């Protein structure tokens, strides 16, 4: 059989591989065939009949979205019959459509509006009464307005195929056919909003965005989600310095159109009423609003004194701040405060993995590998809950490439439904359980292994040994928690490792050691809430906190600086696969400053010179000095993701092994930050739980 098919479309000769659908093949000739129900990557429907074209030697019009190209096929997409058919379909769709475009959220972005404009009649011949059905609220996130629905089944498919959930169905028949939620009158689902954004019309709308604004009144800012470590691009719609919606309809970023509830809706912490908008200084035992200069001076005075008397500092960095901030922070700690007592909340054993894979150039998986590689092994993670985008990739890989998925977890997970094999283990039995998969894995041509915090320290090396013993190419990922957990490691927010995993001369205290140190004199916490879970052993340390909210940790502070969130700053972040992407500031919240600026101001106040605190300048320094970060700038500046290079050389182990304990967020939690997202708080499914098979 020939591997190329020749056909003629509107007189133009085109070629396409066999099996290509006509609707896609014509794009090569710059021809567009209109479609509602056809959706790239989802199952074929042939329901909307918008894509009818003439194919010579067939009496009836043909459906281009399901018709594979054939040798010698002659197609016409621009004839009176085709135009009349399209007009007819648009006219049919409008018969029961309410035409309430002026108040519809989708107005201006609606595919039905566009099609009507391009292919429809000028006036309606429909004189009958339209059918009315009341709008329904299915959840805090999802609203459904049946009259606007054109029954394209995109929502059903994206939930079933894309999310692996089947939370939407359809009941009734004929003109009364109607989309329904899984719990009869409400939804119990991921609340991801995929269905809402994929809806070509305003039938599905979100509780977050409804009736808030018109699309053209917003500016759109593409940035990286601050919640988990998958690094999804989210395009924030902004009006008057307020984020009004998030989506990724332009499919930019490594996530395509995917976003989970956090990436799409949990931006609302930015305008939470309890957001700190002024520095606070403790006076007479109480935190009181203070000016920036007062607060900065207070900190500089105390730190200088502590430093002079040889006191002990502890610095805890953040997993949501940028690479530039993290780099600057560790420099500040090491050079200005003179301490290696710096750490952050670690969630995965990347250093050991990098050490175990040292020298290999093709052993670190990218997020794309989860979609492209023939087999994926997941060890110790509830992927759909903890790593939503990777889970999406895995499902798409199964659908589109028949990939084989293997699961080793302590309890049921959603991936079981698509898995070639699942094994369960009891804590400690992780590696042993893999032996049950060995034979199957050996038969795979290649493998991606993703592992959670259950595999750490020596177990990481054993896992790599296991991978090596399979005799097939294996790539690895250590699963992490937050948007820049990986960057915190790479930038050296570690007591024993500096940027790029270089050993420091005298390792400092770890996070746990700092908290347990009764003689700690100063603790500086940036964008973290260690006192949410731990107690501070030292009785009277001077605590400085930079955060968005008055967290448990901030409650203990002497000085609190109101920080800007990731959506309010620029810089770069690195996702769990080591893919570096750029943040774009969407809004500015009055009274706050990006952490980088706070560091800079503090350095200046201390009379230290750490260089200019401009993100782009610092990133240049990172590129020049941090192992793996010499990545091509154009990729970043054009909104792409560039993976850092593998390490060549030894990564020293910490002097004392400490248990890494990830946060294990579900889809509806996001550490302390999640408590300030109304969306995450109000959905019925929150807070969710792991290993429920959901």
């Amino acid at each position, binding site marked *: 059989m020939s591997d190329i098919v020749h056909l003629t479309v509107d007189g133009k000769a085109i070629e396409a591989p066999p099996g290509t659908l006509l609707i896609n093949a014509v794009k090569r000739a710059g021809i567009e065939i209109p479609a509602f129900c056809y959706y790239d990557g989802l199952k*074929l429907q042939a329901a909307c009949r918008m894509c009818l074209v003439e194919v010579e030697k067939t009496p009836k019009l043909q459906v281009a979205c399901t018709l594979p190209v054939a040798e010698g096929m002659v197609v016409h997409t621009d004839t009176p019959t085709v135009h009349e058919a399209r007009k007819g379909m648009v006219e*049919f769709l409008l018969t029961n459509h309410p035409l309430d475009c002026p108040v519809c959220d989708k107005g201006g972005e609606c595919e039905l509006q566009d099609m009507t404009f391009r292919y429809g009649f000028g006036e309606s011949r429909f004189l009958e009464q339209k059918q009315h059905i009341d709008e329904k609220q299915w959840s805090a996130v999802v609203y459904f307005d049946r009259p606007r629905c054109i029954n394209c089944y995109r929502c059903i498919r994206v939930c079933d195929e894309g999310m692996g959930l089947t939370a939407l169905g359809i009941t009734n*028949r004929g003109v009364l056919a109607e989309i329904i939620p899984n719990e009869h009158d409400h939804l119990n689902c991921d609340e991801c909003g995929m269905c809402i954004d994929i809806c070509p019309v305003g039938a599905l709308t979100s509780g977050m965005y409804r009736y808030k604004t018109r699309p053209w009144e917003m500016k759109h800012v593409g940035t990286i989600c601050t919640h988990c470590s998958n690094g999804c691009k989210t395009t924030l719609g902004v009006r008057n310095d307020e984020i009004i919606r998030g989506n990724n309809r332009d499919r930019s970023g490594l996530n395509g159109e995917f976003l989970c509830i956090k990436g799409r809706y949990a931006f609302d912490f930015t305008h939470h009423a309890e957001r700190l908008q002024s520095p606070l200084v403790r006076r007479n035992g109480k935190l009181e609003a203070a000016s920036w200069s007062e607060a900065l001076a207070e900190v500089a005075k105390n730190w200088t004194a502590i430093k002079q008397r040889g006191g002990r500092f502890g610095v805890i960095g953040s997993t949501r701040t940028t690479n530039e901030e993290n780099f600057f922070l560790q420099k500040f700690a090491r050079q200005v405060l003179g301490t290696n007592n710096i750490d952050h909340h670690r969630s995965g054993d990347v250093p050991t993995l990098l050490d175990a894979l040292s020298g290999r150039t093709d052993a670190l998986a990218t997020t794309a590998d989860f979609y492209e590689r023939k087999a994926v092994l997941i060890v110790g993670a509830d992927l759909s809950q903890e790593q939503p985008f990777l889970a999406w990739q895995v499902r798409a890989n199964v659908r589109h490439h028949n990939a084989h998925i293997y699961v080793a977890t302590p309890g049921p997970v959603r991936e079981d439904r698509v898995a070639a094999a699942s094994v369960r283990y009891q804590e400690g039995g992780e590696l042993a359980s893999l032996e049950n998969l060995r034979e199957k894995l050996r038969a795979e041509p290649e493998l991606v292994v993703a592992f959670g915090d259950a595999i750490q320290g020596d177990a990481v090396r054993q896992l790599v040994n296991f991978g090596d013993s399979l005799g097939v190419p294996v790539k690895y990922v250590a699963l992490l928690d937050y948007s820049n957990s990986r960057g915190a490691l790479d930038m050296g927010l570690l007591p024993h490792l500096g940027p790029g995993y270089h050993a420091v001369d005298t390792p400092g205290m770890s996070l746990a050691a700092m908290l347990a140190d009764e003689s700690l004199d100063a603790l500086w916490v940036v964008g973290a809430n260690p006192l949410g879970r731990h107690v501070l052993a030292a009785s009277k340390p001077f605590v400085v906190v930079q955060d968005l909210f008055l967290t448990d940790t901030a409650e203990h502070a002497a000085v609190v600086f109101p920080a800007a969130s990731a959506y309010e700053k620029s810089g770069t972040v690195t996702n769990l696969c080591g893919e570096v992407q750029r943040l774009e500031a969407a809004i500015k919240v009055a009274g706050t400053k990006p952490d980088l600026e706070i560091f800079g101001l503090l350095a200046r106040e201390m009379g230290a010179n750490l260089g200019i605190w401009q993100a782009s300048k610092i990133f240049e320094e990172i590129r020049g000095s941090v192992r793996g970060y010499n990545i091509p700038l154009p990729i970043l500046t054009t909104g792409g993701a560039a993976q850092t290079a593998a390490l060549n050389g030894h990564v020293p182990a910490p002097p004392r092994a400490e248990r890494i304990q990830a946060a294990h967020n579900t889809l509806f939690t996001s550490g302390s930050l999640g408590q300030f997202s109304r969306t995450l708080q109000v959905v019925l499914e929150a807070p969710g739980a792991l290993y429920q098979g959901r």
Partner: protein
Amino acid sequence: MLYNEPNPLETRVLTKRFGIPNSEKAEVYVANGGYQAFLKATGMPPEKIIEEVKVSNLRGRGGAGFPTGLKWSFVPRTSPKPKYLICNADESEPGTCKDRLLMEYDPHQLIEGMLIGGLAVDSHKGYIYIRGEYRYLITMMEHAIDDAYAHGWLGKNIQGTGFDFDLYVHTGAGAYECGEETALLDSIEGKRGVPRMKPPFPAVAGAWGCPTLLNNVETYSAVPNIIRDGGAAFAALGTPKNGGTRLVCLSGHVNKPGVYEIPLGYPMLEFIEKFGGGVRGGKKLKAVIPGGSSCPVLTASECDIIMDYDTLAKAGSMLGSGGMVVIDEDTCMVKAALRIMRFYAHESCGWCVPCREGTTWLRKMLQRFHDGMGQASDIPIIGQVSKNMLGRTFCALGDAAAMPTISIVEKFREEFEAHLDGRPCPYEHKPAMALA
């Protein structure tokens, strides 16, 4: 008791046992020549069975008239997957009521036909999909099946032939669309009866994704006769390419409505006269729906034709499901069009846009029109909207809705005009539709 008097002019092939008491008993069937064709078929190579069916010129009696032998030959008999046999007993095409009789009066003939089908395509499991309204028939069919099991005509090693076949009844639940073969497959899988994309055809990937042979009740019921007497004998009853007899369901304005078995090629007007006893009340014939409500309507002057698939196609209509509806001169054709469209709007599965929206639009427009609120401009719009559906829907239900409507608007335009300007329906004041 039969529902209508048989007519001596009938050619009774499929109906020859009609009226014999205790039809659900296998013994009664055997005593009347039953199951002999199956035994004969067990001695025939499968290709020969299919060949015989091809020779018979039997065409699908469900409506589409596809050559049955050809369809059987499409089933990949050597496929390692299980193959299923399905009988379409959804009988929902308005005007059609014959499958009911075949199941009620000769259930074992159907079972035997399916057994032979099973031999031909190497299938060992069959389902009869019976519309939910026929609950009494479901019960009867279950009794007949139980009795066939009890007497070794179903189950393992049937009559020592080494052939196994299990047969079950599946109830529908009220949906015309489930008569469409692929919608039926989704329905039997426990889903909404929404048609599937073709290809793959059911013969290759049907019920539960496996090769499936699907035929109408009458089609299967014809098969034992073909095998017993030979395909050629069956073919000879009809016209070229239109083999055998048909059960025609005569209804509407005739003196003697009823289901009658006649050879294909029988003249239509003669049938109305000799079987139906002519138009009721001595009235004039206005129109005939030749094979169920999906067929384009023929005017009286178009009815001087013989009844076979090809001739009706030439006349611009279809032989369809055998439901012939006779319409007299006092009938309002706008009303007829409206009632037909109400049916399709009610039965559209809603999957595709033109049928879902088009049938309801036309229903509303025809209703308004019949209520006297029509405008002259509506008349062409009714035709145009129907044509926007025709040939553009996902399955043939859209065509089935469009075709009669287009024919009525084109052929009876003056009746539409007579409803204009707020005039009441010109037919409604007549006490026309008096009861029989």
